[in-house]
């Protein structure tokens, strides 16, 4: 059957070398031509005193335009990307990024709009933001939206700071925030950054929040419970109404990490589940391209009781004087007059370029399309799980919880490691040779040798079938010779890298001589 593929990745490795842009540099080469100096020039010393002046020129690369283009095109060929192949990275929602969005975002009215432009001259942008706020409010079932946070982690921070402001305004001081032990690492990190202590809540044998543990830990010193539903295990917690009641009874807020919103759009709403604060990852559910690690955007939606504290400025629609307020009249403005606001979380109004793409997506799909997205995302995940079962994969990689999954599911590589002698990491590295991106590995932490698989709605059934077959092939191969996976990958531009060595003696920039 299959032999060791040596060049099976679906992109071409740049053939010649892997020099850095600095290593391509030579004195005197250049790309930049300065525009003409059309004003009378004055001596430098007159304009900047010598003691404040830079002594040597910044050591930037000296390269020509053709070299820059070829260098970065070659680098691009050493990246695997979503437009090239299947990318079932759990909890990251690697779905198709429509090309239309790039075209709209690049229109001069968007791309060339200064953030401090007078609102009267930025009505189109403010209207788009207002419409996006409105759509996110409807999708989440919560009445107020702030678009300001820059990413999911930033939205989380906003949420915990809003909780703090809410309690402080009521004269309450609380010290603890609850997070499930399966939570994404940003949750506990955020809690500390916002000045609270993390208290972990256990998960029960079904993969749900352990209600007894929650009851035991929920007291009047708890400010908030941070949760995602579906959870990072890809499971919908059916006890959510009870969870909300326990949390609200002690006066705490319930925070929704929107990382998994792709499973429930138009099907259920966090607001109806009892959540007070929700963040959205526009780069997950709403198709902002991930960019190799950003940009993202993490708007928040909140209930009425949290609204007084949301960040400023807020995009508002004001009625036109003398005109009956109607849906299609009004002017858009930035409202700074929010005395109880937690303040700013960043400069300007947020990642507008991301808002354009996300709004274009919502506008293209409409209500029916968004619901279809979640239905197919869940269908694809459960189909892939079933298919893996039919091919015998689950014998070695059992589902962590034997339940219907939502948009993603967790397998445990424990039996594979014990019986076939390969770890989840080895399986992941061997998948690279087959031209697919591995799932998220070793997360969530509470599952042994975890693989978190999220196929998303934009994949075809054939792609899912092929992925299942590849996983089965890797397991078959491991039965014959586990060493093949242990040494994988083979066909990638580099093979397994010495990460421990990199951390021991960090080389984090190019050493330069001049």
């Amino acid at each position, binding site marked *: 059957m299959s032999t060791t593929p040596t060049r099976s990745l679906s992109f071409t490795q740049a053939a010649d070398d*892997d020099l850095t842009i600095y290593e391509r540099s030579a004195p005197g080469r250049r790309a930049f031509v300065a525009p003409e100096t059309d004003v009378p*020039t004055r001596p430098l010393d007159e304009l900047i005193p010598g003691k404040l002046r830079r002594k040597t*020129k910044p050591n*930037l690369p000296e390269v020509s335009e053709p070299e820059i283009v070829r260098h970065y095109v070659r680098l691009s060929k050493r990246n695997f990307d979503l437009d090239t192949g299947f990318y079932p990275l759990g909890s990251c929602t690697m779905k198709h990024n429509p090309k239309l969005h790039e075209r709209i975002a690049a229109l001069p009215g968007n791309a060339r709009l200064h953030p401090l432009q007078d609102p009267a001259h930025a009505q189109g942008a403010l209207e788009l933001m207002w419409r996006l706020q409105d759509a996110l409010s409807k999708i989440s079932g919560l009445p107020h939206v702030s678009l300001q946070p820059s990413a999911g982690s930033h939205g989380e921070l906003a949420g915990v700071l809003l909780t703090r402001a809410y309690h402080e305004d009521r004269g309450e001081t609380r010290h603890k925030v609850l997070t499930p032990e399966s939570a994404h690492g940003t949750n506990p990190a955020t809690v500390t950054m916002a000045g609270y202590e993390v208290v972990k809540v256990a998960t029960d044998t079904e993969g749900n929040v352990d209600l007894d543990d929650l009851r035991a830990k929920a007291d009047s010193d708890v400010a908030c419970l941070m949760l995602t539903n579906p959870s990072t295990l890809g499971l*919908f917690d059916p006890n959510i109404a009870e969870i909300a009641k326990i949390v609200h009874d002690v006066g705490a807020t319930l925070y929704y990490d929107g990382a998994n919103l792709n499973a429930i759009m138009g099907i259920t709403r966090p607001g109806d589940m009892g959540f007070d604060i929700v963040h959205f990852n526009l780069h997950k559910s709403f198709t902002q391209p991930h960019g190799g690690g950003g940009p993202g955007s993490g708007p928040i939606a909140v209930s009425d009781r949290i609204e007084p504290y949301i960040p400023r400025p807020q995009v508002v629609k004001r009625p036109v004087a003398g005109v009956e307020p109607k849906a299609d009249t009004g002017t858009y403005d930035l409202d700074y007059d929010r005395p109880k606001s937690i303040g700013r979380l960043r400069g300007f109004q947020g990642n507008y370029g991301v808002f354009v793409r996300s709004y274009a997506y919502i506008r*293209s799909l409409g209500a029916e*399309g968004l619901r*279809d997205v979640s239905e197919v995302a869940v269908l694809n995940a459960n189909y892939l799980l079933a298919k893996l079962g039919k091919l015998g994969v689950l014998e070695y990689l059992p589902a962590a919880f034997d339940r219907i999954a939502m948009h993603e599911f967790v397998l445990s590589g424990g039996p594979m490691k014990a019986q076939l002698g390969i770890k989840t990491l080895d399986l992941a590295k061997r998948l690279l040779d087959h031209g697919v991106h591995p799932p998220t590995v070793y997360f969530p932490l509470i599952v042994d040798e975890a693989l978190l698989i999220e196929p998303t709605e934009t994949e075809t059934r054939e792609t899912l079938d092929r992925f299942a077959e590849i996983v089965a092939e890797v397991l078959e191969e491991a039965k014959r010779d586990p060493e093949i996976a242990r040494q994988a990958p083979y066909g990638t531009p580099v093979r397994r890298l010495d990460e421990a060595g990199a951390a021991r003696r960090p080389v984090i920039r190019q050493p330069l001589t001049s």
Partner: protein
Amino acid sequence: MSTYTSVTDADRAEMLATIGVASIDELFGDIPAELRYNSELPLPAGRSEQDVYRELAELAAKNVSADDEISFLGAGFYDHYVPALVDALITRSEFLTPYTPYQPEISQGGLQAMFEYQTAISELVGLPVSNASVYEGPSAVAAAGYVAKHTNQRSKFVVSAGVHPHSIETLQTLAHGYGMSVEVVDLQDGITTLPQLDQDVSAVIVQQPNFLGAIEDVEALAGQAHDAGALLIAQADPIPLALITPPGEAGADIVVGEGQTLGNRLDFGGPSFGFFAVTEKLIRRLPGRLAGETTDQDGKRGFVLTLQTREQHIRREKATSNICTAQALNALAGVIYLSWLGKEGIVELAELLLQRTAYARNELAKIPGVSAGHTQPVVREFPVRLPSGKAEAVIAAARKAGINPGYRLSEDELLIAITELRTREHIDKLVATIKEALA
């Protein structure tokens, strides 16, 4: 139905049969009936690509962009030219559509670009360690404060009023959370004069050039901070650093800033990137991603994300920051742009800004009733003082002439920014318009 899904009705039936359920609805069986949203979301129906394009192009056309007027707006974001090669390269799918490089063997392109970026930022700001980027400028200042707090466990930040107001406000928001107080120190003739610093001061925070365009003596400020055992954090505007002492060389412990001017568009405020650089001593307190060089099992050079034990996905509640994904694509635009400028070009560009700014400042001061907002040296931006209460009238008159005359600082002050896209002709037109408005 979504045009971005490809599951046919036939697929659907077979897939449900494989799963062993009768309907899609059954897949959502864990959601209690009373929580199911049984109607259609009250959103407009979906539209074709053509219709969505037209609708959103019409919205975009309602905005007055930097193409539609001669704009002297700056105050944190600047209308620099973005070279065509930046667009061509960063819109390649291989850069645009991957996630964070968790599998380094198939992410060498992105990781190597981060390593190159880190080198270029390190050179520009004069510190040995740069991370792979953070969200943007003002939140980078607040993140730097968090590093300072954990470095010396003191309780207060002393912040110059010359730091961008958005940075100060963001710092106040976050510092309230992590339990620090913020004291803002007024400027004197446009630059920072520090009070006597007590032992509670964790960090002194300044901006270079500052919000009013003035070049600060960072070396002197850093000396005062260090004498009191505090760190010096500088927010810097990267292009002017081609001409002025890099804050790191002047003694800053942390240099952060807004990266928009490096190859990123205005985008009504984002996405852009923030840069974040520290001394060798602070490397293990650095927030965010960091690319490092290493070798693979065959001894070949490669790049990985490194020192990950600082980060939230490993260290969780003890992480140096909660930041996860940063701004990789925007930082990539940054390093491509810096390569395009090059060692000589960045100096030539900064000198052009310097000369045109000096010209504009000089010409404006000749207008009767107009004076300099301060007398400090500047590179690319400066305040002008108008006759009392005249800012609105000047802005209105300029608008009529197709000019955006700058950021309104107060009822009688404007902050005017110059880029290489604002020519002498533009400056002359601005001067003539203001002169006429005040006549």
